[in-house]
């Protein structure tokens, strides 16, 4: 395998890591939606720690290796329209993802705190946080942006 092929393989693996994290978060949000007890919510949100690592690897990997690929290749330039579109989509998805994280990290911190305080009973504030329409909308926006990013990467419009 040539150096370019290694870069491409690692770039694609990073993209898979990013999408895999989104799938994991989606499952956690869906399963937690109907949970009432803080201990149940806390348990489910433990899964997101791995998602955080996968997002970090995916976000950094796709960006750094993607730019490296564009520099290494004679066929693409970093200022090509489709690459700029991809960079914009990447940046937007990172921002919506960061805001999503703010909403759900509060759930991840609050649920075990309630358990530690001995208040493992249905908690209206925690339930509202878990079923936050803002959090859900931000997560959906992140999914749509990443999907658009994958479409741009495959179709390479204008290339």
């Amino acid at each position, binding site marked *: *395998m*040539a150096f*370019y*092929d*290694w870069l*491409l*393989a690692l*770039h*694609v*693996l990073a*993209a*898979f890591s990013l*999408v*895999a*994290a*989104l*799938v*994991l978060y989606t*499952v956690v949000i869906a*399963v937690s939606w109907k949970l009432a007890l803080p*201990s*149940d919510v806390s*348990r*489910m949100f*433990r*899964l997101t720690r*791995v998602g955080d690592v*996968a997002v970090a690897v995916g976000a950094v990997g796709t960006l750094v290796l993607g730019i490296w690929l564009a520099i290494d*290749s004679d*066929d693409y330039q970093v200022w090509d329209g489709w690459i700029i579109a991809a960079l914009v989509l990447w940046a937007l998805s990172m921002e919506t993802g960061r805001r999503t994280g703010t909403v759900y990290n509060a759930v991840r911190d609050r649920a075990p705190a309630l358990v530690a305080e001995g208040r493992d009973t249905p908690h209206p504030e925690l339930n509202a946080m878990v079923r936050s329409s803002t959090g859900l909308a931000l997560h959906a926006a992140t999914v749509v942006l990443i*999907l658009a990013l*994958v*479409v741009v990467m*495959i*179709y390479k419009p204008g290339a």
Partner: protein
Amino acid sequence: MNVLAVIRPDDWNFPLLVHVLGAALLVGGLLTAVVAQFLGWRRQRSADAVAYARTTFRALLFVAFPAWWIMRIGAEWIYRREGWEDVESEPDWLGIGYITADLGGLLLLVSIILAGLGARRLARSGGETSTLLRISTVLVTLALVAYVVAVWAMAGKPG
């Protein structure tokens, strides 16, 4: 240099998109299941073990299983669109892709059955260790590793 990606005809893009999205969702479903399985592996509290077992089963059945079909149908579609059936000696990366897709599918199917039975037994027994779930954990982990290798092979195209 990945010449194929550079000069790919436009009518290959949609089948490739279906294949890639299916594969990414599959890896995400398997990652979610593996994380839940390992979190549930050593849990002393029965509620924890049962909840993680159910999450594993749902992630495999409702995410990984449909995603496998999307990935596999997309694979066959792009395989025919690219005209590989007319080529006598297929490249290594294609062989790796086929073997991992089909063998991984078998592992996935067995894992779903074992995870479902294991989760049911665990709930009935009050959370004692389930051998079926542990076998399922090993199989799902193997499938995940195989698919990561497949992603590397399909993207880097060794040979």
